[in-house]
């Protein structure tokens, strides 16, 4: 019998984990934003088009959709869209910076079924968080958490991207989550979007990666990870969860203008499979795009074939390799056996993210950002 992972690699009839960025508009300007969000795109899906996407997801039996952005609550039809989804059997998990969760919004969210909310913070204190997410964003996020707790929302999620600065605060982040009866979710920093410029300074060091692996072995049952740390499996016993890159197989992204990408971390023309506005809609893209067919072919271990750890780490994350200029059939830039560091040293150029909805650069330069923004 083939393993479940083998079956998943050949792709499913519909995605399990579909991310849908509702808008490129965002009031924040986080230095690691995967989608380089800031300004709304005039081509974004209309309300009717968004409703049609949900109806199609329902027909395909996509059980839930991960809604993000940008800041999804900036869309005036945000509640219309999530109401339609949750009442038609498409559950919603949405990520927000919390700015627009006031008392009224929290009550409204608490009254809905099949809705999960993730508030993003990137540190266990204001200083650490605000360096990445901008001044005042910590207070904003905590106000949103307070509002959800006051509205008896129940168990919301606190979503953290693990960086060099906050990897030592994981226990403190758990304490914060516990104080709200919330669940902590931690995910891997990717060099996508604005993160392409900041990843080199923000990604955890080799020693921190080992600490993170052991922390996950001990505490992994208390946190959600989106199975995003499988590259660490080369360190020993596998972490719980799916050990594979799900891009185009079980995962994909619909961006605000309806473009479908292989995963949320590769908003780049090379990984664009189609658009939900194309004839046949999302289902045609998922079922018959050439890109997705290619991603569902058995992969080659390439330069990793001679490494004994390949079965454990599967060569890591496609997006992390792509945006650091590494071959897709070689080691992950954060390869725990050190092959990534060697490959990075040899990589001379990396593809640039080809979408940028960031607001004026003067704004970012004015933010309290310690990292150098090496902008074109």
């Amino acid at each position, binding site marked *: 019998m083939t393993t479940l992972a083998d079956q998943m690699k050949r792709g499913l*009839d519909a995605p399990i984990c579909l991310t849908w960025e509702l808008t490129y508009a965002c009031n924040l300007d986080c230095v690691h934003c995967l989608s380089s969000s800031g300004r709304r795109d005039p081509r974004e899906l209309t309300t009717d088009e968004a409703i049609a996407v949900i109806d199609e997801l329902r027909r395909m*039996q996509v059980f839930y959709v991960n809604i993000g952005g940008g800041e999804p609550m900036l869309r005036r039809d945000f509640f219309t869209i999530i109401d339609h989804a949750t009442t038609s059997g498409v559950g919603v998990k949405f990520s927000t910076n919390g700015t627009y969760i006031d008392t009224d919004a929290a009550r409204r969210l608490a009254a809905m079924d099949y809705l999960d909310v993730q508030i993003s913070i990137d540190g266990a204190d204001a200083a650490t968080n605000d360096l990445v997410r901008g001044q005042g964003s910590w207070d904003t996020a905590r106000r949103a958490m307070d509002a959800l707790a006051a509205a008896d929302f129940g168990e919301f999620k606190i979503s953290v991207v693990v960086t060099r600065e906050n990897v030592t605060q994981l226990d403190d982040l758990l304490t914060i989550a516990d104080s709200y009866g919330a669940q902590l979710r931690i995910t891997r920093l990717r060099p996508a979007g604005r993160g392409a410029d900041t990843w080199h300074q923000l990604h955890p060091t080799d020693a921190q990666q080992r600490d993170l692996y052991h922390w996950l072995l001990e505490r992994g049952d208390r946190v959600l990870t989106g199975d995003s740390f499988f590259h660490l499996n080369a360190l020993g016993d596998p972490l719980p969860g799916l050990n594979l890159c799900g891009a185009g197989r079980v995962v994909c992204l619909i961006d605000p203008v309806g473009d479908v990408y292989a995963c949320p971390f590769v908003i780049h023309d090379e990984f664009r499979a189609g658009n939900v506005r194309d004839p046949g809609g999302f289902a045609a893209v998922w079922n018959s795009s050439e890109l997705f067919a290619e991603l569902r072919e058995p992969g080659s271990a390439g330069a990793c074939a001679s490494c004994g750890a390949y079965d454990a780490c599967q060569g890591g994350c496609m997006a992390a390799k792509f945006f650091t200029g590494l071959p897709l059939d070689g080691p992950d830039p954060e390869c725990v056996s050190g092959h990534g560091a060697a490959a990075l040293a040899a990589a001379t150029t990396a593809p640039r993210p080809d979408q940028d909805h960031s607001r004026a650069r003067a704004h970012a330069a004015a933010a309290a950002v310690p990292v150098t923004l090496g902008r074109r």
Partner: protein
Amino acid sequence: MTVHTATMGALRLHPNVALRPEPFGALAYHYDTRRLVFLRHPQLVDVVHALHEHTDLDTTMDALDIAETLRGPFQRAIANLAEAGIVITRDDEKDSS
């Protein structure tokens, strides 16, 4: 905790669970617990769909002509599904006998 299917009696799919057909069988999603579970044999999916029409798991498998070699694995699979709350016991045995 292990659930023994032999003692579970009449069973059914939880009303808030959706089953999505897949080449290998089906995906089951529990909307209440947000749990996603894999049913890794097409006939196991048939069994799960038919549970509510029969008095227990064994009679369901009899009715569907499930091969002897599959019965042990299916009993374990149904026990796992029961632990996940995907399959639940039902109290209406009299109308299915």
